[in-house]
């Protein structure tokens, strides 16, 4: 369904659909098998201008917002949730960079982010700090005009491939959550290396790495916002990035249905197509209804968010302030509850749809050479990253209780 997309957004969806069909589908099985991100996919995304969907034209983007990004991620994920990731993770790492950057930092970092010349990634999670990000232990000690970073991050998506990492460190361990700071750290910086490459259940077409920092010198100029502002920046980023995970989940669910329904129409048992059994039809109807409900939630949210986001971006470009500072002036600058709802609902839907698609197709769908089982493996991650669904429920409930307490 079209939720009132602009012509540009429709064009983005069309382009991403073509890319998914022509470029991702032929590569997905091998990328999944080899657990490798084929760089030609990144090249295609660059050439198609998909890295700058949510960034202003002034920096080489196409001037859209979260809707533009979500539409692309949804369409690409229909072919492969893993191959779609470089766009999503570059946005996840890039969002705090863009929203918290000073005008000067924007000039330095954003053109390469928008063109995709440099892929960004986001590094928050540590071995001891998962759902509780405030427990992170990677330290950054100020020495003159640079920080010295020590510690490690794990489970970092598009790790090793990405060029710039938005890393959450503590600049003041005593202050806990208020000691967290974001630094941009470039691949190749002395003292920054890659550790373990994870072997995964799903999204195997994306690399997941450990990042290791040993006396890694990072210029103070690479700090986003002030010291101690990191956690707020991360939370604000999740407001804008979780609908992207929701869109990935929806794409995976739709992709699974796209493979399943044609098969059910041709598979005959008891002398008739399996799709003619009412039990099968009703299941399909329920699954498709949930997917459309998810789309309605995601796109009504992103279209609403974009109104403020685009206003804040416009104001920031005019005033020279950060996008975050301009967002603060707007009433509806935070979307934590709705954003968590979108990820919660769509990821659970994706898992249900992908798993039911296997049931619907039967044994063939359990086999690796039939494209359905992969959707189930890929769906799982959407319930975990950018906060597990327990955490999403916590956030939704916390917001609810706060609303009711306020009366």
């Amino acid at each position, binding site marked *: 369904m079209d939720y009132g997309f602009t012509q540009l957004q429709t064009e983005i969806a069309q382009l991403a659909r073509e890319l998914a069909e022509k470029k991702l589908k032929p590569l997905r099985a091998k990328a999944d098998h080899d657990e490798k991100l084929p760089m030609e996919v990144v090249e295609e995304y660059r*050439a198609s201008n998909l890295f700058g969907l949510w960034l202003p034209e002034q920096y080489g983007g196409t001037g859209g917002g979260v809707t533009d990004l979500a539409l692309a991620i949804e369409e690409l994920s229909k072919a492969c949730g893993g191959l779609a990731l470089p766009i999503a993770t570059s946005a996840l790492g890039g969002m705090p960079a863009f929203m918290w950057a000073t005008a000067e930092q924007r000039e330095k970092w954003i053109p390469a982010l928008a063109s995709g010349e440099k892929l960004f990634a986001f590094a928050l999670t540590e071995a001891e700090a998962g759902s509780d990000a405030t427990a992170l232990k990677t330290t950054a000690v100020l020495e003159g005009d640079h920080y010295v970073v020590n510690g490690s991050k794990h489970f970092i998506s598009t790790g090793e491939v990405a060029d710039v990492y938005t890393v959450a460190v503590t600049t003041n361990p005593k202050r806990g959550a208020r000691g967290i700071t974001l630094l941009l750290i470039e691949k190749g910086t002395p003292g920054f290396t890659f550790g373990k490459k994870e072997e995964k259940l799903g999204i195997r077409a994306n690399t997941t790495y450990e990042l290791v920092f040993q006396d890694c010198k990072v210029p103070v100029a690479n700090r986003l916002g002030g010291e101690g502002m990191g956690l707020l920046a991360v939370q604000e980023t999740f407001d804008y990035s979780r609908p992207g995970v929701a869109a990935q989940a929806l794409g995976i669910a739709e992709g699974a249905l796209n493979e399943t329904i044609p098969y059910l129409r041709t598979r005959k048992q008891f002398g008739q197509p399996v799709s003619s059994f009412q039990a099968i039809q009703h299941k399909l109807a329920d699954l498709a209804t949930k997917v459309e409900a998810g789309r309605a939630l995601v796109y009504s949210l992103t279209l609403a968010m974009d109104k403020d986001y685009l206003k804040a971006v416009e104001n920031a470009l005019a005033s020279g302030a950060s996008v975050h500072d301009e967002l603060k002036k707007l009433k509806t600058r935070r979307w934590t509850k709705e954003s968590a709802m979108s990820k919660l609902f769509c990821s659970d839907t994706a898992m249900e749809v992908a798993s039911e698609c296997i049931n619907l197709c039967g044994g063939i769908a359990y086999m690796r050479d039939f494209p359905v089982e992969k959707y189930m493996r890929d769906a799982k991650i959407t319930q975990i990253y950018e906060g597990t669904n327990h955490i999403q429920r916590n956030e939704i409930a916390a917001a609810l209780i706060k609303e009711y307490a306020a009366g």
Partner: protein
Amino acid sequence: MHIIVCVKQTPAGENVSVDQNTGCIIRSGESALNPFDEFAIEEAVRVKEKTPGSKVTAVTMGPPQAEAVLREAVARGCDGGVHVCGREFAGSDTWATSYALSQAVKKLSENDPSVLVFCGKQTNDSDTGHIGPQMAQWLGWPGAAFVRKLEAVDGKSVRVQRLMEDGYDVVEMPLPAVLSVIKEINTPRIASLKGRLASKKAQFPKWSAAELGCDPAKLGLDGSPTSVVRCFTPPQRASNTVKIQGETAADKARNLSAALKEAKIL
């Protein structure tokens, strides 16, 4: 360098069928860019990307609605396009079409010798593969057809691989030149978002025969030496398939290698 790519609007679909009784092309109604021209555009854009200061102009000859393929060419990375359009061109065969197109190329190159023209190998409707070589003839420029690879190109010359039945030739020629490319030459990209946006805004000049300085006698039916007597789909060529038999996979492999040796392929 000015890179010019010739594109044609043809009925959508890889293979166009001909009505056996009337000899006419069965048109589904949907039109599209000739599939082979996607490769010509892609190669033209790649040369542009490798050659600073160059630009790509698409040229089409066809009725007003053919403008759509110029838009598609811009979406795929061309900088602009011109539309050779007018009643005076109607009824042209390949000789008259290539004359008109060569006049457009002349006008675009304006005595600048640094010009490289790309055509597709053939179209999916008339299917002759004449246009590229005929344009080279009209222009008096060197040309090559069945180009499968551009080995080197600069503002002065181009070196290409031309597919032959028994291998390939390496041909080097000075610019200006005309190349017809085959689909092995590249994998066309998906039109980028910025390309799509630019294509919506693009304006294409329409060039008439007068503007091109064409000799009216060389255009349309009068300028077309060919006459269509009858159109038919030739019967499918019988393929000489030999099935290699054998008990086990090893037997089959042995028999296959024996058969290949006998045929002097191995």
